[in-house]
């Protein structure tokens, strides 16, 4: 593979075939892909968790089925992502062309979560009397901070590590 070829191009099944296609950004198809990605990524996690519950409740066959469904749903989410990546990551459409851009996009996502989404969630939970959920969101914020710090560290290593 050409080292100069961008990640998104490598993973773009349409461009690799050499055929022209209309831009995906802001189309109804783009919205549908994002919705499908959210649904399948969430379902994959939900089914995996429920498969454990089924096992604990004494339904091993149901548990195995749910595990297999979860695996396939995770694969489907990956399939949606194959297309979505032409535009960017699915949460904010930030470009993810190559590792450097991917790290930058993820850092932006985490920062946004830490500065806006989670503080809002924490204060709503407090105001509504859900003190345990507020504390959970605070614990999530700690994880996000840790992840941001790790991404910053591995981002620094990009220039020295090089590509493939």
């Amino acid at each position: 593979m050409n080292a100069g070829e961008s990640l998104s191009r490598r993973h773009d099944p349409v461009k690799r075939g050499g055929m022209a296609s209309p831009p995906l950004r802001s189309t109804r198809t783009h919205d549908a892909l994002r919705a499908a990605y959210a649904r399948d990524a969430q379902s994959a996690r939900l089914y995996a968790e429920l498969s454990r519950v089924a096992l604990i409740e004494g339904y091993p066959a149901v548990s195995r089925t749910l595990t297999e469904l979860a695996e396939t749903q995770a694969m489907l989410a990956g399939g949606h992502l194959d297309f979505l990546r032409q535009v960017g990551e699915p949460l904010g459409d930030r470009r993810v062309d190559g590792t450097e851009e991917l790290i930058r996009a993820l850092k932006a996502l985490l920062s946004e979560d830490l500065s806006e989404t989670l503080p809002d969630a924490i204060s709503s939970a407090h105001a509504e009397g859900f003190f345990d959920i507020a504390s959970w969101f605070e614990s999530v914020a700690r994880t996000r901070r840790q992840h941001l710090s790790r991404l910053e560290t591995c981002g620094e290593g990009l220039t020295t590590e090089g590509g493939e």
Partner: protein
Amino acid sequence: MSYSARDIEVLPPLEAVRRRPSMYVGSTGPQGIMQLFVEVAQNAIDEVLAGHATQVDVVIDGSRCTITDNGRGIPVDLHPQLGRPALELVVTELHAGGKFLGRAYAAPGGLHGVGLSCVNALSETLFVEVLRDGHRYRLDCARGKHQPIHDLGPATGTGTTVSYQPDPQIFVDSTTLDTQWVATWLEEQAFLGAGCTLSLQAQGEKRQWKEDGGLPAFVRHLSRELPPIHAAPIYLQGQYEGISVEAALQWTTNYGEEVRSFVNRVRTPLGGTHAEGLGSALSRVLHREASRLGLLQSDEELSAADLREGLVGVLSIRMLEPEFEGQTKSLLSSSTATTAVESVIIQAFSAFIAAEPETARAIVGKALEAGRARRAARRANERARYRSLEGVISKEVYRQQFGIRSRNWHQSARWLTDSALLGSHAAMCAVAPDAQVLDVCCGSGVVGASFRGKVGKITGLDLTPEMVRLASERLDEVIQGDVYAIPFPEARFDLVVNREVLHLLPEPQRPVAEIFRVLKPGGQFIVGQMMPYSDADAAWFFRVVKKKQPLFFNNLMEDDMMRLLEGAGFTNITTTEYLQWEDIEVWINTWETPNHLRHEIRDLYHHAPAEARAVHPFRIEPDGRILDQWRWVVFSAFKPVTP
């Protein structure tokens, strides 16, 4: 860069074991050391089970372990195809042994021929002595390399002795076996019907086991300290398509569940398909019985976890060619085991219940109680969250939970009476010997009592009448009251102490402000909290604790505590850290933790993310027990002398 045949490395088999020991024995830590023992000892037990030995003796001397059986002795004659002595083959070649063909042993344990040669590869020294054919033979090895077999001359009797010393180059941290664990293993083998005498000599002591009572005796032994809810263990057995299934079950008034499962007498601490079969069979039979007896109210459902609460059981199956996940056989994956166990248990348990309906009624009654406690725990979470119009937090849920727990308070977790942890609170004491002390949310009063001798009068305060009675045995005076409105005037105490409470209270700034109010100027507040190690384990730890304790509201860390204390006006804040190993099975064995959440807590440990594992030490023992090194931080803070 060129890549050719010369880049391909072919390692001698035992060298491959030394390069990747964890692939063969699970780890190079304590679990690996235990696995070496199991490999050798299981061979001796298999000789017993095949009807050729009556005695197995284990001697542990430092890191050397010697296991002797009086069986047939490993053959020393030449292998017809390979032209090498059989003894040399089983000790030096992977996948050489008498268990593959199914002729010498039926349904054996061990790792099927990987065993003894693996132990040889991972031992600094190993020797095998064989008594056979009127002679004693000896084979000496060091780090997998062997000497020729010596004929030591004529001798009477038959048997095999294997003596090995784990290699410190491989097992870097320790090469010593946990003798208590070995004792438990031998005891299990005795109860599983080995039918022989087993002995252990270690640390100057000799213990011996010979058990003839089979699985019912095993279950009686495991449940010996728990009040039973039916007279004798229920013994079930049968055969299904060549798989032999045996189980003994005893329901107790305990909250926890302990079911040990075995395949061909090898413990499967993570269970697997056979344990799944047992769980689903019990659920089906008991559900059917509960409906038949009309014990379920119209809106009532019983989960399988409710039905197994308080159950102590042993499941043992024997089958040919069992399949496991991983080399160390901790989880059975053979799907035929589920069908076999389900089929045998449903049939035998249904027959038992038909003959003894009163026992069935008692078991279902216990499950109904578990289901009601589960729903109460869920309501506790909801009700404690609820704030009335006056802004008062519902306190009944705290009274209910701690009232029930007061019955066995000191047995409900190790940390409660850990003397070093109590000592780390008392060590921070910086008040005069005649100081007036208040132990807030005092529980049984052990924290306040740990200051005895350093202070004057110690008063306790607790919401729960049962705890007030318990603490009265230790403290000078105990008052029933509420930490949100401490029933004492301002500036009354020189020292306030409190441990592991603030995480259970919504809006902890309110009780901290109350504590500040009742302290005299210059007074000290000493407060201990268990907390995550860092941001990396905070969310994982939140999930563990929340599943155990529905009243967990604050995942407090040092910076949160600092903000709380400084926010109330405290100054001169210092901390000390204390690490303590908690037995998670003991900790989760409480009324407020429904049985299905106990399972989910174990899952969280088994699937802890690498980031959490990197900072938060915990161990999953080979018998499945989870030990977590909890981190306690004790804070000392002072009320300023002048406002």
